[in-house]
């Protein structure tokens, strides 16, 4: 049986590679923690703003309370 010859260029182009180790991991997401104005998660950081009651309790210039959650590497924000 007649075979075609393999040329050097074809052989030069061949290459193998060492595959990366498959290391499946889980990073720790700790409990929520609280600062004076902030609650923070690791990887997911949650910030809670308590809001302000507004001028003389009328609601004028008041800020609503809200929560912000930020995840690493994802970012999820809720208001």
């Amino acid at each position, binding site marked *: 049986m007649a075979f075609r010859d393999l040329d050097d260029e074809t052989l030069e182009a061949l290459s*193998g590679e060492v595959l990366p*180790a498959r290391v499946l991991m889980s990073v*720790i997401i700790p409990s929520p923690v609280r600062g004076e104005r902030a609650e923070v998660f690791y990887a997911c950081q949650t910030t809670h703003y308590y809001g302000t009651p507004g001028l003389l309790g009328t609601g004028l210039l008041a800020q609503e309370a809200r929560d912000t959650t930020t995840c690493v*590497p*994802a*970012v999820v924000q809720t208001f």
Partner: protein
Amino acid sequence: MNDPEPLILPTLTEGAELVGEFKGSGYRQPPQLVRLPNRQLVQLPPLLFSVAKALHDHRHLAADPHAALAEVADAVTAEANARISTEQVLFLIDRKLAPLGVTTYSNGTAPSLAKADTFLALRFRTAVFPATATWFLSGLFAWLFKPAVLLPSITMVAAAEVWLVATQPMGEALNNAIRTPTSILFVLALTVLSCVFHEIGHASACRYSGVRPGVMGCGIYVVWPAFYTDITDSYRLGRGGRLRTDLGGVYFNGIFLIALAVLYALTGYDPLLVAVVAVNLEIIQQLLPTLRFDGYYIISDLVGIPDLFKYMRPILRRTLLRRPAEERLNALKRWPQIVVTVWVLTVIPALAFQLGLIAIKVPDLILANWQRAQNLALSAQAGAGPLELLAGTLQLILLTLPLLGLALLTYWMLRWLTSKIIKIPTPQQA
């Protein structure tokens, strides 16, 4: 004039194993696998694998290396349907196989074992459980993957999620829990336990699928504490087995949630709900395909390409710089090529966007850190108990880690992208 070096018939590196085809691959020509003595796997094009196999098959002819090489060349010729000379066989051995650690060199020199380039991998790690312990642990839980158990379990996970998230007072539980340091420590302990169980899930899936899981341990990913399971041998599995191994961790998180739900139903203890939130966040995080979390491996196994990060440069060059497609890219089948392109073009902006958003949070984080440190000092002065101080210190550390992580991640990303796009040699290449 020096005499030419005597020819010694090269052999497979001692301890290396010819595994065979990488199943469910996304390559036009399915690659073959060789397992090195250090447990790493090498992916070879079929012709190189034929050479390694023929060498192994003719190792009994080592007394006459020239005759043995002629036999090897004939065997490879028959396998490849193309004529290859003994000189070309020697070229492939000395230039392609031996540098990867698959065979010895033709002068008898033993190769040094090559290492994979692992961008954004878990570099700093230490094994806690040897492979034998992982084998034992995974044996205790592998039955959870039997179809008769798997399907009811998944249904129960869904039911528990709906019940907990839709009907239970999560926000109130969160507020209550964060006021008591002991609750925080309790939730943190449950979170760590969930992570460990997640890893046992990967190992168990690996064992159930038919290959041995490796060591389990802990380490630092970027700067965050992490647990890991080495399931490198799962490259030997078909696509279904690899995907089962990838999803095993999240499945075990689900089982952990069922246990939390049962405990909460029995006790009504609020911090358990906070742990449910933490486990759910872990599941979401694991399924993201950006860094090397489970979601990344799921995409990698769906398309049958072991290292997606290696395609970032070719795809960016072709897409952004309008350069012709590199050979590496052309070697992929059509649909894996499309999926990898979408992955690259999505992940890079997504990572940049996420880093940007987190960077915006830096002032808040610094402020929170400062306040936490002050509170901790005040608590200590006021004679706080050891549990409260421990919880405060842990919180301070956990608040600091994202800042360090952000800085390091940005540095690594910029350095890597620069070296890949402009081809600046890394210290190893220089």
